């Protein structure tokens, strides 16, 4: 517990430093990439608990992100302006912003229970189809909500709260807030993994019948994993909404869910490090390819490269970049040659 508080402090200071550095010295477009990467990391690390750790194939993650985005956006608009109305953007207040994120996470988490409790009784393909359906239904229901702007969604979503001493682009706050939650989700995911609950989840993935026979309540544990993922997808949605200042239901199509799956598969299902690596690659790839696309006049090249990358990966390294390993000091030490213990 004291370590947790110290760690959180360190996270806040670290993210503040990163935020300051980036807004002082780095061009806005690169900061934008970094923010998109951060959002992807939150999504991927959360979903990894479900798909990687517990081995339940869910592809409705965008649905939870959508719910978080709309709940957080609406709450923030009402807190900041009192009504949905045109006008200049303002910064959300600190307490209100945190409350909005909490609403988003909790709304998505509660939905996670509602969807997960029945859906997680399904296996394999059936679970995949059910979660995919959930994501699409959520999006379509949101499109039909005139009070939430219908297909055009919500606009004029406040900026993230100002930080003392920070300035620059976007009030110089988004990196701080996004990476603070990147930090939080990584710490919590690693802690979950390295606990009796994490072992229970892995046990379910490895052999569900044996896990149950050992007294692991698999139905309940799967819902726990699902809610963890949903909660952080909700937070990511709220951060996204505050970052873009507008959200549309179509920001959360099945393609986005599949993108997150691609991140996990690429990085290595079951590894937090892999999820992070996958999020970086999949988020950057279209950005890096765009100049080439434009130069050659080939639209959609990035989709082709995506597909090729995935196929290559499946053929040559089906376990993903990291497999189930984590980047740790131990692994780093093993990778550095000449530091191996001499054996007689």
């Amino acid at each position: 517990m004291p370590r947790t508080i110290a760690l959180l402090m360190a996270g806040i200071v670290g993210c503040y430093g990163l935020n300051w550095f980036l807004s002082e010295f780095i061009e806005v477009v690169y900061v934008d990439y970094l923010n998109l990467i951060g959002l992807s990391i939150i999504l991927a690390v959360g979903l990894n608990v479900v798909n990687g750790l517990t081995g339940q194939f869910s592809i409705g993650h965008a649905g939870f992100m959508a719910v978080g985005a709309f709940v957080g956006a609406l709450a923030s608009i009402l807190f900041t302006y009192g009504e949905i109305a045109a006008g200049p953007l303002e910064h959300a207040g600190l307490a209100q912003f945190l409350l909005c994120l909490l609403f988003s996470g909790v709304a998505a988490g509660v939905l996670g229970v509602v969807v997960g409790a029945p859906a997680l009784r399904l296996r394999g393909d059936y679970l995949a189809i059910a979660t995919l359906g959930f994501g699409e239904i959520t999006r379509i229901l949101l499109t039909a909500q005139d009070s939430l702007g219908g297909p055009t969604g919500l606009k004029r979503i406040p900026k993230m709260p100002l930080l003392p001493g920070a300035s620059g682009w976007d009030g110089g706050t988004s990196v701080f807030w996004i990476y603070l939650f990147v930090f939080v989700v990584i710490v919590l995911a690693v802690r979950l993994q390295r606990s009796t609950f994490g072992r229970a989840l892995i046990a379910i993935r490895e052999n569900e019948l044996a896990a149950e026979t050992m007294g692991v309540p698999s139905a309940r544990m799967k819902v726990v994993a699902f809610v963890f993922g949903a909660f952080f997808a909700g937070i990511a949605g709220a951060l996204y909404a505050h970052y873009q200042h507008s959200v549309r239901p179509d920001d959360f199509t099945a393609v986005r869910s599949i993108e997150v799956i691609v991140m996990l598969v690429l990085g290595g299902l079951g590894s937090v490090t892999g999820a992070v690596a996958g999020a970086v690659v999949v988020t950057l790839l279209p950005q890096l390819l765009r100049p080439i696309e434009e130069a050659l006049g080939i639209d959609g090249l990035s989709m082709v490269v995506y597909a090729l990358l995935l196929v290559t990966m499946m053929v040559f390294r089906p376990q993903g970049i990291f497999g189930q390993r984590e980047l740790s000091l131990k692994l780093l030490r093993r990778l550095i040659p000449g530091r191996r213990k001499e054996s007689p």
Partner: protein
Amino acid sequence: MTALLETRGLTIRFGGLCAVDCCDLSIQPGQLFGLIGPNGAGKTTVFNMLTGVYLPSEGTVHFGGKLVNGRNPVQVARMGMSRTFQNIRLFDELSVLENAMTGAHQHARINLFDSLLRTGRHFREEERQRDKAYRLLEFMGLEDRAGLPAKALPYGHRRRLEIARALATEPKLLCLDEPAAGMNTGEKADLAKLIRRIRDELKITVLLIEHDMKLVMGICEVVQVLEYGKTIARGTPAEIQSNPRVIEAYLGGG
């Protein structure tokens, strides 16, 4: 003395096949009970009904005086019945130690937030599980493999790890499904000693399914013989060995 495990008219049908037909078992606390029979006799199916994997078509299972029928495997495990599997079911990607720790999970008295926030309770629970698992690995002679992934274990060790994991649930009754399958003579002798120590030192009642007659006859006090789902004999090893019906079932083929 009342039986720890008692089944009455236990029957299960798969389509037209009556895999287990009116099986009555009565296992006293502290007993080392053997269940034998040719391949396909229905022994594993009996285990599956005892542990909540299959719902019996007819008949009842009572464990510690409580009705088991209708409970799922998690509930049965939490009643104090644990088992191993004929086709080994380990958690391959977890380490040997972690496999055994998973057995102790059901006794964890902490919630998720203890682990996420790393409270003192989390660390105490981890220590409790690690100590317990390590002691059981020592008991099963696996302590120097504790850090290996379970998938890296050789066959005989995998069977022993399954037993260690089952013991970590602190069962009153341990059900072993052909634990000696695939072991050589030396390993079998070691295993026989271990099974006896589980009963004598850990005071756990053991229900043993085993193909190896010598092993069963050497350590069990009561043996029941199944053939085509029906009980054909029940008694002490000496009685069973001289029972013409049993000799026929085992030697007559079928």
